[in-house]
C-alpha cells in the first residue's frame, strides 16, 4: 500500500453501519442472481418467489407461517445463547452437540410420558434438555478454566460425538431402545405421545405455538440480563479483557462457568421446544442451528435486538428457499446456505469499510 494505511474511524455512526450492511446484502443478492442466471433461472422471479414464501394466493398460507415459526424459534434462541458466550470471547461452537444432547434427553422424557399432564410433560422435557446441554457446557467451561483447554476444538468434537450418539439411537433395533417405533421392522424414530407435543393458542385456523411466546419473552429477558444486571456487565468485561476483570476483583472462573452453563442450557431449551414442536426426534432435528446461529450472532454483532431481526431474516431466507425449491428442481434449499455465506462475507467487507478508512501515512504519524 505504500503511502497509505488503515486507520480506525473515530466517528462510529450506527446510520453508516446500517447503510453499509444494506449495501452488503444487495451485493450478495446480486452475486446470488449471477449464480441463478448461470442455471438459466430468472433471478427476479426466483427471489420474489423466495421472499413471498408461497404465501400469496395460498389458501393454506397460515400453514407456511407456522412452518416459518418452527424454523425461527430454535434459531433465535440458539443465536441468543451463542451470542452470550461469544460476548465473553468464549468460542462455544458446540451448538449442534448441545442441541442434540438436549433433544435426546427431552425425548427420553417424552417417550416415557404417556398419560402425563401436557404442560408438565413439556416443562419436564425442557428441564431435561436444559440440564443435559448445560452440563456439557459446564464441563467444557471447567476444562477451559482449569487447564485452558481449547474450547473451540472441544465443542467441535462434541458436536460429532453427539451426532453419532443420536444416529446410534436411531439405527439400533433393540428391546431397550424406546426411541424407535415398535410396529416397524426398519429402525425409525417413534412419535411422541400427544401430551408431549407443543400446544398453542388457536386463532381461526392458525395456531400460535407457545414456543414462540417463550422465545420472545426470552429475548427481552436476555436483553435486560446483558444491559441491566451485574452479571451481564461482568460478561462483557471478561470478554473485553480477562485481566481487567481479574484486577477489578471479579471471579473470572466463576463468571465463565456460569455464563457457559446458561448459554448451553439455553440451547438445550431450544432443543426441548423444537422436539416438542416436531413431536419426534431425528438426527436432523437441529436444522443446523448450531452453525447458522454462529452466523446470525456474528452478523448481528452480538446485539440482542439485531439477533432477533437477523434470525427472522435468515428464517425467511431458509424457508423461502425451501418453498421455492418445489418450483425449481435444479435448486434445493442449499441455495439458502450459499446466500447466507455470501451475505456474511459481503457484510464482513462492508463492516470493515464502516469501521476503517484508508489514510495517508503522514497524516497518521501526526495524529
Amino acid at each position, binding site marked *: 500500500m505504500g503511502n497509505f494505511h488503515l486507520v480506525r474511524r473515530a466517528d462510529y455512526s450506527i446510520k453508516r453501519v446500517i447503510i453499509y450492511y444494506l449495501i452488503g446484502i444487495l451485493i450478495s443478492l446480486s452475486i446470488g442472481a449471477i449464480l441463478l442466471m448461470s*442455471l438459466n433461472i430468472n433471478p427476479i422471479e426466483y427471489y420474489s418467489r423466495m421472499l413471498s414464501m408461497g404465501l400469496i394466493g395460498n389458501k393454506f398460507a397460515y400453514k407456511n407461517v407456522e412452518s416459518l415459526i418452527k424454523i425461527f424459534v430454535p434459531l433465535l434462541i440458539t443465536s441468543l445463547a451463542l451470542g452470550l458466550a461469544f460476548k465473553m470471547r468464549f*468460542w462455544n*461452537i458446540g451448538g449442534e452437540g448441545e442441541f442434540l444432547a438436549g433433544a435426546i434427553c427431552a425425548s427420553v422424557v417424552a417417550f416415557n410420558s404417556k398419560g402425563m399432564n401436557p404442560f408438565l410433560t413439556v416443562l419436564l422435557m425442557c428441564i431435561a434438555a436444559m440440564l443435559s446441554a448445560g452440563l456439557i457446557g459446564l464441563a467444557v467451561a471447567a476444562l477451559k478454566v482449569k487447564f485452558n483447554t481449547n474450547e473451540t476444538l472441544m465443542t467441535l468434537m462434541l458436536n*460429532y460425538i453427539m451426532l453419532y450418539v443420536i444416529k*446410534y439411537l436411531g439405527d439400533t433395533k433393540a428391546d431397550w431402545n424406546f426411541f424407535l417405533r415398535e410396529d416397524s421392522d426398519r429402525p425409525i424414530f417413534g412419535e411422541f405421545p400427544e401430551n408431549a407435543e407443543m400446544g398453542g393458542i388457536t386463532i381461526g385456523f392458525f395456531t400460535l405455538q407457545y414456543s414462540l411466546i417463550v422465545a420472545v419473552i426470552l429475548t427481552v429477558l436476555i436483553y435486560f440480563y446483558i444491559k441491566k444486571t451485574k452479571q451481564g456487565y461482568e460478561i462483557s468485561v471478561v470478554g473485553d479483557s480477562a485481566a481487567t476483570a481479574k484486577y477489578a476483583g471479579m471471579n473470572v472462573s466463576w463468571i465463565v462457568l456460569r455464563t457457559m452453563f446458561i448459554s448451553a442450557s439455553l440451547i438445550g431449551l431450544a432443543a426441548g421446544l423444537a422436539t416438542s414442536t416436531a413431536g419426534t426426534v431425528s438426527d436432523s432435528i437441529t436444522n443446523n442451528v448450531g452453525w447458522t446461529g454462529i452466523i446470525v450472532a456474528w452478523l448481528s454483532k452480538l446485539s440482542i435486538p439485531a439477533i432477533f431481526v437477523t434470525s427472522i431474516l435468515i428464517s425467511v431466507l431458509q424457508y423461502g428457499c425451501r418453498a421455492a425449491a418445489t418450483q425449481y428442481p*435444479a435448486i434445493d434449499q442449499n441455495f439458502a446456505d450459499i446466500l447466507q455465506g455470501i451475505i456474511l462475507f459481503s457484510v464482513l467487507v462492508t463492516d*470493515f469499510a464502516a469501521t476503517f478508512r484508508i489514510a495517508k501515512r503522514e497524516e497518521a504519524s501526526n495524529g
Partner: protein
Amino acid sequence: MAELEVITLFLFSVIVYSIPLLYGTAGEIMIEKSGSLNLGVEGTMAIGAVTGYVVACRTNSLFVGVLVAFLAAAVVGAAFAFFTVTLQANQNVTGLTITTFGVAFYFFLGNGLSNSAGGWPMLGDTTLAAQFAGIEIPLLSKIPVIGKVLFSHNILVYLAVVIAVLMWLYFAKTVPGLKLRSIGENPGAADSLGINVTLYKYIHIMLGSGIMGIGGLYMGLNMGGTFEGSNCWINGYGWIAIALVIFANWSPARAIVGTVVFGLFNSLRVYNVAFATTFPGALGWLNKIPAHFFSALPFIITLIVLILSSMRKNSSSGEPAAIGRNYYREDR
C-alpha cells in the same frame, strides 16, 4: 488363506480411506503453523472436489483435474486470508462460513449439472478413470500382503505421502519454514525481524487450502464420481482432519501415522463383520460394537488427546502459540 486375504483387503482399504485425511490434515497443519485456525476444511475440500472433478471429466485428464482442484481450493484459501488477515475478521466465523458455503456450493453445482442438458459427468470407463487406477510398483508390489497394501495404489495416494514428507522437511530444515513457524508462535516478534507476516500468511493459507482441494478431488474419484443429492463426498472428513491435526501434534510426519490410525477405525466400521466371521474366536466381539462407535472414535480420541495435552502443559506441544488470534500491527 482367507484370513490373510481379509487382513490384506482391510489394510488396503485403510490406506485408501485415510489418504484424503492426509491431504486435509497436511493442508490444515500448514495453515495452523502460520497462526490461523481454518475451520473451513470441509467446505474447501468440497469446492476443490466438485470443481476439480467436473473439469477433470471435461478434459479427461487427471493432471488438469488436480491442478484445478488445487487452484479452486487455493482461491477459497485466498478468501479466508483476505477476510482474516487483511480485514481482521474472526477466524472461527470465517472458517465455519466457508464450510457452510462450500458444501452448499457443492450441492448447487451438482444439482445444477444433474438437471442440465449434459447431465452430471460420469467417470465410467474414461481415460480419467484409467489414470486414477492403481499403479503396481515393480518388484515392491510383489511382496506378499505388504506389496498389495502399500505399493499398489493410485497416484494420488503416493502424492499425499510425498506432500506430507516434503512439508515436514520444509518446516524442519528450511529458512522459510522456520520463519513460518515463528509467525505462528509470535507474529509481532517475526514482524520486528523483518518477516513479511501478511505475505507469509497469504501464501501458506493458500497452499494449505490447495492441498485440501486435492484431497477433495481424491474423495470424489474414490466414490466413482457419482453425485447424490443427499450426501456430500467429503462426508465429515474435513472435521476429522481438523481433529487429526491435534492428534498429530502439528507435525506432517506424525500426520501420516495419525491418518493410518484414524483410517483403521474408519475401515473397522466396514470390516468388523468380516473380521468377526473370519476370526470368530479372537475377534468375534467386534460384531457387537456398533458401527457408529467407530465413526465417533476419531472425535472421542481427539477430545481425550486435547484434554490430556492441556493438562500436561508440556513444552513439546507443537501447537502454535498465536493460533486463532489475528495479528493487527497497530494493536501491538
